[in-house]
């Protein structure tokens, strides 16, 4: 499986005559040393997106606190904005970063062919196989050039969830102007819940993402310097 998933642009182990046993997960063997794994545009958009998510989530928590629909509030110290008006200002400034950066990411990801190359094919069988490996502690994350089935699923989920956050946010912001979006999300009050749970789902992704980065710290370095 691992061979077929090595990107066409990278040199395969065979091409540089390495012993087969070294090909599965050791990164420098797959490509010339110093070759870029994550292109600069993708690293830039990743970190801008991380910043946007931090701004949106921490300001969003303070907005939630103004009229919580569950029995809890987020502790003020981990929120952004100081008061409701400040949090709203951050939220409605951060949205431009989140949306514009997200659109640029999607445009480049699709047009460069990276989306198709890195994320597809994504089949149930691959996800199931990799999930079983993961549960047995056998799934390797060590090759940042290749996304395993669970990574593909997780990153695509993050993209879809962010899109849902933007759409439900739009439905809340412009509930009169965009009636079809509002109604599709269960009306204004429905859209509030969708927005909240999409945030919670994104936080679950972030938690898993950070755990994986802690387990495979090299991925952080790759995301910073590209190789």
């Amino acid at each position, binding site marked *: 499986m691992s061979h077929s998933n090595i990107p066409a642009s990278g040199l395969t182990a065979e091409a540089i005559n390495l012993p087969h046993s070294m090909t599965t997960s050791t990164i420098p063997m797959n490509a010339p040393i110093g070759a870029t794994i994550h292109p600069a545009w993708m690293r830039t958009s990743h970190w801008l997106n991380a910043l946007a998510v931090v701004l949106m989530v921490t300001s969003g928590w303070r907005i939630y606190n103004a009229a919580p629909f569950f029995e809890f509030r*987020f502790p003020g110290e981990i929120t952004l*904005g100081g008061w*409701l008006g400040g949090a709203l200002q951050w939220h409605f400034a951060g949205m431009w970063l989140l949306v514009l950066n997200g659109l640029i990411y999607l445009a480049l990801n699709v047009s460069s062919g990276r989306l198709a190359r890195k994320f597809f094919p994504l089949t149930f069988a691959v996800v199931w196989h990799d999930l079983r490996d993961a549960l047995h502690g056998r799934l390797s994350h060590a090759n940042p050039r290749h996304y395993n089935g669970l990574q593909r699923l997780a990153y695509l989920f993050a993209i879809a969830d962010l899109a849902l956050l933007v759409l439900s946010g739009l439905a809340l912001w412009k509930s009169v102007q965009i009636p079809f979006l509002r109604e599709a999300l269960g009306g204004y009050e429905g859209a509030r819940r969708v927005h909240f749970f999409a945030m919670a789902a994104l936080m679950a992704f*972030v938690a898993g993402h950070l*755990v994986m980065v*802690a387990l495979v710290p090299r991925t*952080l370095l790759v995301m910073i310097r590209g190789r």
Partner: protein
Amino acid sequence: MKITKHSPVGHVDGGAAVKEALKLLSRRVEQPSRRAFLERSLTLGGLAMLGGCSITDDASVEAALMKVSRFNDRVQGWLFDPTRLAATNPESMITRPFPFNAYYGESEVREVDGDAWRLEVTGLVADKRNWTLADLRSMPQHDQVTRHICVEGWSAIGKWGGVPFSHFLQRVGADLGAKYVGFKCADDYYTSIDMATALHPQTVLALTYDGQMLPPKYGYPVKLRMPTKLGYKNPKHIRAIFVTNTYPGGYWEDQGYNWFGGS
């Protein structure tokens, strides 16, 4: 895991990630200047992740956020469709009791003497005479059951009735090409709206709530009701209306709430 004490997720993981990265960098990046740069950028990112303490107090940050908010006013003015109506609801959906909301508590609601009350109309209007409550009641009335959305996030459905504001503006010969309509209220509240919203068919100079004379807590004697705007844009106890091209701001808007405040 210590983060669970604070919230389901938090910034501690982010902090750990930053530390981990710093450790990695000091080991792997040999050139000192490059290392310093990367370390500094990571620290910046880490600081941003720690959230709102120091960065929000900065006056220049506040000024920048205010600028973005004014930019968002223009975007919203552009998105606003003057013919798009807010959804109306059956009376069975009215929220009872309808929540009270103001910048003061319910015990401090202003009692206005309706007989002595006069509505001032000034600025870019042809007819600047004062209006009595009877004058307003003699005009054609319109009512609607619509959703009121508060900036805090909650919403409630209510029924308001009164004079369509566009009729009123035409009647006083307002310059309908002016940019703003401002309001001064008996409870010292003040706000202002864009002309497009002022002329919207569902914008009503409300005299009644749920078929009854507007009670003091909902803004007796007159409130401007706009289902296309957030609650704080809907002034209660109005005593003066003015039409102007000079940005008038508002009680909450001057403190940082978005001026357009429209949905």
